[in-house]
């Protein structure tokens, strides 16, 4: 079980650091790369939670498809580097960070105060079973088949919409 904790600490640290670096880097490509690292470490966290299917889907969908798309657009339009943190409207930014830290402290306090771990105790067998692709597939195509189809239509309409929006208008 100590292995689990070591893995959690490593992935959590990578996740947080890469998230913060993503927000603070001025070069958009570097930011996108740190977001990829972040998604990879999240996939690792999902594995420590026995959610194998979602972990692999995270890598395939987020790291493999969505972030490549982001990188593609960044390379295509090559936006100029942004100004550094304190060069532009520093008061506003410091205020934003302070508010975020405050809200985070509140949430952390609520989480620790309400002690959710007293209410749930993880049974390893049940949590492993919940994460297998068989279990997810069965639920997805029986109980949740209507939302599944709806998501299919959503993706179709998104694809059409993206085509219409990004297409060059000929005059």
């Amino acid at each position, binding site marked *: 079980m100590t292995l689990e904790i070591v893995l959690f600490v490593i992935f959590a640290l990578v996740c947080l650091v890469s998230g913060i670096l993503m927000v603070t880097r001025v070069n958009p490509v570097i930011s996108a790369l740190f977001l990829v690292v972040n998604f990879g470490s999240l996939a690792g966290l999902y594995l420590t939670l026995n959610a194998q299917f979602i972990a*692999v889907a995270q890598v*395939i969908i987020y790291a*493999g498809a969505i972030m*490549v798309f982001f990188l593609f657009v960044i*390379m295509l339009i090559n936006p100029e580097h942004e100004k550094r943190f304190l060069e532009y409207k520093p008061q506003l930014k410091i205020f934003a960070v302070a508010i975020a830290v405050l809200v985070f402290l509140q949430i952390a306090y609520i989480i620790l105060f309400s002690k959710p771990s007293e209410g749930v105790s993880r049974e390893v067998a049940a949590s492993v079973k919940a994460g297998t692709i068989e279990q997810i597939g069965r639920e997805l195509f029986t109980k949740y088949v209507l939302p599944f189809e709806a998501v299919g239509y959503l993706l179709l309409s998104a694809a059409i919409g993206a085509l219409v929006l990004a297409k060059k208008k000929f005059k």
Partner: protein
Amino acid sequence: MGIGEIILISLVKILLIISLLFLTVSYLTYFERKISAWVQNRIGPNRVGWKGLLQPFADVFKLMLKEDIVPEKADRIIHLLAPMIALFVAFSTFAVIPFGPEVHLFGYDIPLVVADVNMGVLFVLALTSLSVYGLTLAGWSSGSKYSLLGGIRSSAQMISYEISMGFSIGGVLLLSESLRPIAIVESQSGWMWNAIVQPIGFITFLVSAFAETNRLPFDLPEAEPELVGGFHTEYSSMKFAAFFLSEYANMIIASGLIVTLYLGGWQIPYIDLLGLPSGLVALLQVGAFIFKLVAILFFFLWVRWSLPRFRYDQLMNLGWKVMFPLSLINIIWVALLIMIFGL
């Protein structure tokens, strides 16, 4: 088996696979040159060693001695990172490809695969989807317009063909009812090879594999006449060698996947009817896997020296308007087979 023994056996397997892969990759470059020479009626490399057999070592030695040049406008860290990503992804995919049946050695049952993951096929898909980064970042970080064009092309091309690749794998999964590569191989016993049961899926997968490995006729990311060298224009020395190795390693992995998913993996049809001793059967089956792998690799090389390069719009049209619908038709075909014959 204790945890120590499992780790030891895995380490041995990893070392074996990595060293074999490096050797195969370097000799693949030799065979590429020999086959191109054969196609073009030349002799090919014949000076270093007998029949030029030491040529790969000479190549590696030459690349090591070259100066490592980083362009002034390049992003140094990412310029270094990109070939590493390409090589890492190419070599780690082989972990889930089974190259033989379970064998009994020194009192242990050892499955001849590095990692018997129950989501093996998804693992492969995840890693191939990451292989885009190596090429795209190489193109971007070089700070050269040819490289950038190559990188953008590679990301669009690989994402497009990943879709038809994923859908053709869908047909295989319908029949095998499992994502474990070993189970997929075992589901193709006898002549029930997926290449025979679902020929359309086999063709779409083959074409997508060519596009994913950036081989001719789909080597648009590095098209020499248009883009100088594409994404690796600004690379030299061992960084270039890393890209070169990863391209050939990708070819071996694509061939391994094709053999595993469509050509029955290590299986030889009806070999168990002959009543041979199990050790010999296992050896023959590993041999069969290698034979199929080499046959597909030869096909890769043969196609490269026979077909011209596609134009970019033709490539996209083929991917989206031909390969994608065909892979969907394949899924319907397999579903019909299952419905009618109850396979």
